[in-house]
């Protein structure tokens, strides 16, 4: 032992560090580590279905039939704070104040409480799960009870969910709730039991003005992609990079 030994071990140490560090960087170049995409499956195969959804705010009349039908079809508890889809009534007055209300999700209808002359702009916004491709809810689920199906629908495995509420907290759109009887997370399934049998969703079935639309985002000649081409559609909270697949036509910047 002596100065020589120390020198050698330092050289060894540097060599090893260079190999490990360089190797990690080289490996990450070969296969980029995408922390976000790793949570969900890539759309990949363009020949398969990749579900998307459009809501046309111009057409929505706020009748609340969608929220009502959704509750019936999916056995959502009738209490006025459990919803898989609901309608919000936005009113912007002349001072720029924004009022948002959604009494019983819109099922019992809406009344305009502000005087007509005070109103600058007013409209209805139906809300539901955005079926994000990079879902925050899927990323936080520690047991793998919520997931993105290969055709792009975010589902909950109610037999495997432990009801920890992480996903309810994580959803930036407030689309999840804890089912009061099953004690597990519950949310819009895009009527997966209907769309996989060739039917349309319950909310679309009953919408009297065709304000809602479902379709295949991989079908470039399909009605959904055509609608997206011809209209200026936006997603909610785009800065969160959730890759939402629910598109809104005529979305006002005040909508959160």
């Amino acid at each position, binding site marked *: 032992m002596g100065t020589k030994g120390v020198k050698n071990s330092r050289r060894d140490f540097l060599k090893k560090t260079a190999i490990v560090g360089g190797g990690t960087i080289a490996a990450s170049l070969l296969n980029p580590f995408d922390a976000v995409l790793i949570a969900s499956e890539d759309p990949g195969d363009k020949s398969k279905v990749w579900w998307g959804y459009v809501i046309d705010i111009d057409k929505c*009349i706020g009748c609340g039939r969608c929220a009502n039908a959704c509750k019936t079809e999916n056995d959502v508890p009738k209490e006025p704070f459990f919803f898989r889809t609901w309608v919000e009534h936005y009113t912007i007055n002349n001072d720029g104040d924004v009022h948002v209300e959604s009494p019983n999700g819109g099922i019992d209808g809406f009344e305009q409480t502000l005087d007509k002359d005070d109103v600058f702009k007013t409209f209805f916004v139906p809300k539901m799960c955005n079926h994000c491709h990079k879902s925050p809810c899927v990323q936080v689920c520690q047991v793998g009870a919520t997931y993105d199906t290969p055709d792009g629908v975010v589902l909950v495995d109610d037999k495997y969910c432990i009801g920890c509420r992480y996903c309810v907290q994580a959803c930036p759109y407030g689309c999840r709730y804890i089912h009061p009887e099953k004690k597990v997370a519950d949310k819009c399934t895009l009527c997966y039991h209907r769309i996989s049998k060739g039917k349309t969703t319950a909310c679309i079935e009953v919408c009297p003005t065709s304000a809602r639309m479902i379709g295949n985002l991989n079908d470039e000649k399909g009605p959904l992609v055509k609608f997206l081409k011809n209209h200026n559609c936006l997603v909610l909270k785009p800065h969160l990079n959730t890759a939402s697949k629910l598109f809104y036509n005529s979305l006002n910047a005040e909508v959160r």
Partner: protein
Amino acid sequence: MPPQLKRLLPAFIIFILLFLVLKYYLTPETFGEKGHYRYSSIAEVQNIDMKYAGMDKCNECHDDKVEELGMDVHADLSCEACHGPGLTHAENDGDYEILIPTEREFCALCHSKNISRSTRIITQINILEHNTGKKCIDCHNPHMPWELKE
């Protein structure tokens, strides 16, 4: 091999083996087949029973009504928008009654005056002034609302 390691090694091996055994028994079937979830739960969600039949199903028996409805302003309406879910009704030869809403409030859900609604999209009336005390369907046929009853 240093003696500390010699003693600890079996403990580590036992710990790892125990972990693998537990993982084998605790991981549900089909977990991880397509991703970090139980693949068979997709089929479970798909097999949930439907309640809304869809208009094709209504058309099988009530084609006259569907044709009436499709003639003008209510053409975009689905039967079940007003009549509620109808799959049990359809599958049991009409044994289970569907809803027949008659109250003014039901029509008002869509047709009451509200400045949030576009007049281009929907005809609106002031429900507090328009023929109060009468039912909408006393004058209007909901399947053909452009025709006034006598």
